[in-house]
């Protein structure tokens, strides 16, 4: 039951498995059933389950989110897909004012088994309106769960868990991860609220979300050659948050960088940094450092786009500063960035 596949394949496999297992699961959203299939992540579903369980919609994010809620309240398990998280700004009213609190206000009578999938982050010259992440928005609101997988296995297992969850889950998938390949064990389940140590080390803990794990692992690879071992913790689920795994790691390394794929100000990196400082007050040798987007909208032109996004280079430089090391010569280094293999137009 193990196979090698891309992140995008693991997503469609997870949905297919759940749709097979439970006739109340369906998937819908703009462009979900067209031939591009949301960057391939809904591939095969129309063929297997028909247009009644995998269908497109008008351009109406606000109403379609309400529709998903209504279907969930009726006992179905909708998966609503957005090709860009930015478009969810049109759905914030349903998410923040309805989905997050109808259960609470009904005294627990209403149940909302609903997954909203959205693509986040960098593509290719996407500019300010197709490049956000915004996990902090969703995580800020009680009543929502927020998941950010990094590997094909996690995407697969966490998406299955999210679909089975009886609560609303926001599932955020980085565009660049879609091409990442990895082994997927179809039987493996992963609960929400479970961080994982991607790499063991003793020098500095890098707590990372989504694509930043790729950058952190690359930074670790580079620094390892200098004998410095980074520990990389993949948060995976923003809410519920696995504090223990994170705190344990920081108590061990006593130094921490939070590398969140989002803006820093009032972002999830602030939450983590504040939490870690609070719980590791007497353990930290240095203050927790935070890494995120440049505090501006994302520009289109490549040289500025490159500066906008945080990367392995930033992590390396911060580690060097933390440990009082000379700067590593990175001139010969090639980074995992998809800057070069990602071609237009979208």
């Amino acid at each position, binding site marked *: 039951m193990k196979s090698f596949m891309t992140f995008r394949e693991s997503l469609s496999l997870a949905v297919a498995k759940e749709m097979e297992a439970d006739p109340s699961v*369906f998937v819908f959203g703009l462009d979900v059933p067209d031939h591009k299939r949301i960057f391939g992540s809904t591939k095969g579903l129309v063929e297997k389950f028909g247009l*009644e369980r995998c269908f497109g*919609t*008008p351009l*109406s994010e*606000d*109403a*379609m*989110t*309400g*529709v*998903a*809620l*209504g*279907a*969930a*309240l*009726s*006992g*179905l398990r*909708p998966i609503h897909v957005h090709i860009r998280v930015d478009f969810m700004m049109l759905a914030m*009213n*349903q998410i923040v*004012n*309805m989905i997050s609190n*109808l*259960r*609470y*206000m*009904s*005294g*627990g*009578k*209403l*149940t909302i088994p609903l997954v909203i999938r959205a693509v986040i982050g960098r593509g290719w010259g996407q500019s300010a309106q197709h490049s956000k992440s915004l996990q902090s928005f969703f995580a800020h609101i*009680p*009543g929502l*769960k927020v998941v950010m997988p990094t590997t094909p296995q996690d995407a697969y297992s966490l998406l299955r868990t999210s679909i089975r*969850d*009886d*609560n609303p889950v926001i599932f955020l998938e980085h565009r660049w991860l879609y091409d990442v390949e990895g082994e997927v064990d179809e039987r493996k389940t992963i609960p929400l609220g479970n961080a994982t140590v991607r790499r063991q080390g003793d020098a500095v803990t890098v707590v990372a979300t989504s694509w930043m794990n790729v950058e952190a692992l690359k930074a670790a690879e580079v620094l390892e050659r200098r004998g410095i071992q980074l520990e990389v913790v993949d948060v995976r689920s923003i809410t519920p948050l696995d504090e223990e795994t994170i705190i344990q790691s920081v108590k061990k390394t006593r130094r921490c960088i939070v590398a969140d794929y989002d803006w820093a100000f009032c972002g999830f990196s602030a939450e983590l940094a504040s939490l870690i400082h609070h719980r590791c007050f007497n353990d930290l040798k240095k203050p927790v450092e935070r890494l995120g987007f440049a505090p501006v909208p994302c520009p289109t032109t490549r040289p500025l786009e490159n500066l906008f996004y945080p990367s392995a280079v930033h992590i390396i430089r911060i580690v060097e500063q933390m440990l009082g090391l000379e700067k590593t010569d990175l001139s010969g280094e090639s980074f995992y960035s998809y800057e070069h293999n990602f071609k237009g137009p979208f």
Partner: protein
Amino acid sequence: MQKDILSKEESLALYRKLILTRLAEEKIREEYFKDEMKTPVHLGIGGEAIPVGVCHCLPPRSKTFGTYRNHSLYLAMTEDTDGFFGELYGKVNGPGKGKAGSMHLSFPERDFIATSAVVGTTIPVAVGAALANAYRKSNDVVTVFFGDGAVEEGVFWESLNFACLKNLRVLFVCEDNGLAIHTPAKERQGFQSILETVKTFDCYVGGGQGHDLQGVIQSTHQVVKQMEDQPKPGFLHFTYYRFLEHVGPREDFDAGYRSRPTPDNLDGLDPVLCFERDLCQNGCKPSELSAIKKSVEEKIAKSVLTAQKTDFPSSEELYTDLFV
């Protein structure tokens, strides 16, 4: 269906509901000044015949959704005055254990699914429930009530479009009191008539004067029948007169944005007076009506007493009901 098709029994049951919703709200008006019901109340006095009439026509298992102005709808769907007053007093015997309050009443066990204090927000949710019915090949109808202001929100148009596109059995009921808080329609709407615009969508339409319970029933029956015959959304538009202030227990004719209806007008605006007259014309005796009224009054008084005596939720309740 013709007006005269209502049997006497049916008529009196309807009267009971109508007067129940009216008297429950009159009771709120009495009690509210004691400052024990700590929740903003949007009273529906003048509009009761719309939910009472529409719900009368709904087939069994019809889910309904509404707004913050939901008291009549709650009572029309459930007749549950105990839960109703329990919730208004913030007590554990309310269907939301006091967490919901007046603006968020719901009673899912009786198909009264959800209401919301953000205008327009239950409209797409009702469409989603109708989609779920279609998904399950059920012919059940879902109904959603909203005000004339809600049609200005984009989500109304998105929801209408999707429902028509998918031929869903969802009944949109616009309760048009000509006001959004204090602002008249002509200061908010750039179209001549909502019905004319909705007619250009692929759905059945109907409506009329919302104070006329029999008329409401007649047009609802018509549209629901069409919906049952061939699945498509229905849209009902009923006008009515809001007797009280937008939120709260008082009249506000001194506020300057409208004037008090004259006694002659009143007669043509009040659904209770109107239906009582109809009933009497059709042979009901005033004594029959006042007997019903009396029993309803007692029921309400008892529920208020129960609510007052019931406990508030305990502190631990703050943290329950967030997740399954």
